[in-house]
């Protein structure tokens, strides 16, 4: 098993820099989700790893194999990396089994023309791969007859045909409906794990990234802002931007003093999150609180007085929009049992430790 590592990878499309000195180490056998807003360069990163896009500079290696170094570029067909694109990209002129056989073709030294594929489409290895994704019964279908989820499974089986150490998945679930999407990603996760294949999944859906991956890389504007396990990325985001991107966040100005921040919400013990040294007492910082950390109570003396301004009810929980008496706006996530109506006078308190960032 080999680690994929990228160091200082820069990629340009035309004149503009799309990736800026990206560093990433993917532990073998893990599933990494790359998440970021659209246009942040996450698909370009995936294409660069696959060799479909040339890097301007930087190194990419898989174990001892150099894939990209000093502007040298190993052709994608020599990298042995599985690729599952967003549209599944099944070859329309081939059946399901022939699509998988196409994957076995080139490295097996066989031709990829229709006739030899037809012959190979009943090979034991093809059947085995289709069985992995549970589609043996559809072997002779044409891609046009498959549902979106089935097409993605065939694309995965085809990618696994080259016995890759690494499979890259470019938003493979984006076009599926939410229920199917949840099912399929659990299935894919399990399949990659049993096959012992490292996976990199690109998605713009942060909840998908947090729920399925071993590690999450958050990207914006061509840079990886944070790499870590889902709890660490959600619980200790590197910047307020990351905090907003991976979940709801309340960010307020506050004053730092001895590991605690005083703000409109009162005093809260806080952790300093920055590469900079902790500030001196009395310095203004940005305080980040998750809405579920804000405890709302009715008829109590403790905490900041506020009024419920809006209620957005989602079933399993609800988000209360609050206006503190000094005009500060924030929100709190409460269980449905704690539902209040707009206009209710409440007090707000922070539970647990908050995070403080440089302004």
């Amino acid at each position, binding site marked *: 098993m080999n680690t994929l590592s990228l160091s200082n990878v820069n990629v340009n499309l035309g004149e503009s820099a799309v990736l800026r000195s990206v560093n990433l180490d993917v532990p073998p056998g893990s599933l990494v989700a790359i998440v970021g807003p659209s246009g942040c360069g996450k698909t370009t990163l995936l294409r660069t790893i696959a060799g479909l896009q040339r890097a301007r500079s930087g190194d990419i290696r898989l174990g001892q194999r150099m894939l990209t170094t000093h502007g040298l570029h190993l052709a994608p067909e020599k990298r042995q990396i599985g690729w599952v694109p967003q549209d599944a990209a099944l070859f329309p002129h081939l059946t399901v089994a022939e699509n998988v056989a196409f994957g076995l073709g080139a490295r097996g030294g066989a031709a*990829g023309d229709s006739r030899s594929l037809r012959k190979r489409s009943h090979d034991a290895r093809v059947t085995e791969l289709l069985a992995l994704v549970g589609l043996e019964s559809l072997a002779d279908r044409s891609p046009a007859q498959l549902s979106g989820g089935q097409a993605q499974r065939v694309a995965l089986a085809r990618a696994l045909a080259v016995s890759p150490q690494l499979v890259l998945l470019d938003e493979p679930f984006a076009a599926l409906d939410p229920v199917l999407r949840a099912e399929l990603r659990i299935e894919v996760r399990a399949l990659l794990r049993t096959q012992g294949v490292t996976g990199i999944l690109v998605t713009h859906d942060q909840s998908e990234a947090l729920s399925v991956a071993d590690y999450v890389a958050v990207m914006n504007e061509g840079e990886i802002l944070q790499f870590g396990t889902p709890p660490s990325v959600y619980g200790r985001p590197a910047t307020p931007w990351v905090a907003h991107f991976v979940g709801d966040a309340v960010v307020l100005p506050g004053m730092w003093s001895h590991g605690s921040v005083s703000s409109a919400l009162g005093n809260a013990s806080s952790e300093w999150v920055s590469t900079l040294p902790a500030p001196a007492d009395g310095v203004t910082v940005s305080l980040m609180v998750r809405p579920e950390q804000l405890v709302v109570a009715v008829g109590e003396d403790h905490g900041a007085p506020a009024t419920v301004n809006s209620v957005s009810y989602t079933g399993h929980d609800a988000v209360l929009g609050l206006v503190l008496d000094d005009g500060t706006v924030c929100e709190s996530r409460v269980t449905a049992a704690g539902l209040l109506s707009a206009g209710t006078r409440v007090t707000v308190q922070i539970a647990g430790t908050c995070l403080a960032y440089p302004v």
Partner: protein
Amino acid sequence: MATRRAPRPLVVLAVVACAITSIPLLYLVVRVGSSGLDELTMALGRQRIPQLLGNTVALATAVTISCVALGVPTAFLLTRTRLRATTLWVIVAALPLAIPSYLAAYGWLAAIPTMNGFIAAWFVLTLVCVPYITLPVAAALRVATSGLDDVARTLGYGPVRSFLLGTWPQIRPATLAGSLLVCLYVLSEFGAVALLRYPVLTTAINQAYGSSFNRNYAAILATVLVALAVLVVIAEQSARGRAKRRFTAGSGVVRHSVIRLGRWAPASYSLVAIVPLLAVGMPVGVLFYRLLQAETLRELNVTELLAATANTLALSIGGAVIAVVLALPIGVLAARYSGRIVRVIESVGYLALGLPGIVVGLSLVFFSLAVVPALYQTAIVLAFAYGVLFMPKAIGAIRSSLGQVPTSLEDVSRTLGYSTSQTWWLVTARVARPGILAGALLVAVTAMKELPATLLLRPTGTDTLAVELWSRTSASAYGAAAPYAAVLIVVAAIPAFFLSGARRAATEDTA
């Protein structure tokens, strides 16, 4: 991805293809340019040229105006009113495209042998050209919104003014583009005007070439014709101006109100029926009447008919192969890459769209005589002329069928271990193959109907269906011409109609 830089070998191949197709034309221009100022001014000063020029411009203008007058209302009726059996009417409206102009002229002449002159030429060409307006305008009307009309109505404008304010700006570009097609069609038209004895530039070129002592004069006339075509293209582009992209695909669903015909129904049905009836129904009817006459059947020489059919098929298939080979690098570039060089190459590739067939024919005569005299009047030069003339169709087919192959298929193939060239053959070319073959077939059936270049370049003794039909008709032997016309319709017109996408373009979204 369209942002990739085009690989050099492909660019070189495309440039070579462009050069091959444009060298004969350049040669023609150079020849005219080097013929000496005296000769040039003398030729241009002759009485005939201003008259020919006047006739050509008058005919093109008259036909364009009448086509717009008929085509825009027809398109409106087809898309915005509650016509019964709309789909059928839409197909019928496209039908005249399948009929070569000389075949329509044949039909009318066989019925009324005294037809000739400006009115006759104007009448027949209008019938044949109306779909060039109807189809693009109907397509534009289908995606245009009538919401602007509705707003105008609520602001107190009447229905006609509202249409002019709201819908007309949205269909104006399509009307202009259609007018351009009609204009170029009439400029390059040869068969019908020759049969109807109306002297224009193309017929004069043919005549001057026929009287072989005066070939320089033919070259000068051809240059004038090309200059005229260029002027028309420039005029259309400047008229279209910036309005072009103002009303691009609206967001989401297009709404338009459908108008009940009420007491206008009889007039409406007459309008949508009249052009197809006169352009297709009448000539085909006359044709079959003539065909089934005892005299025709008695005189029919089956061997000659079969020989002409075989010649037609062989020449047009050869032309299709040449067109596709020349178009392949250009089509691949246009479909997969972008950039200034690619744009220039592509527009040179489409050059022949504006070139009259007779000019291409003439330039190849000169070029083959000067460079490879051994090839003069051989089937190779004629097939090559077909290749040059119809290369734009092949480029279009290759470009669109390659454009429909998602690049993600190529990505997957690369990651599965296939090299660039293997990927091209096993995936890209394989998936695009049906579209490219259909394009080749379309070129072949279009070439079968080609007349002016065929008349100039055909090897002596090799007659095609179009040539036989034309020469018999111009000798007023309408009965003898009928079998050739019938076979031409069967082998070329009907498949061309189904292949050309005219039917598809017409019926799209009418359900």
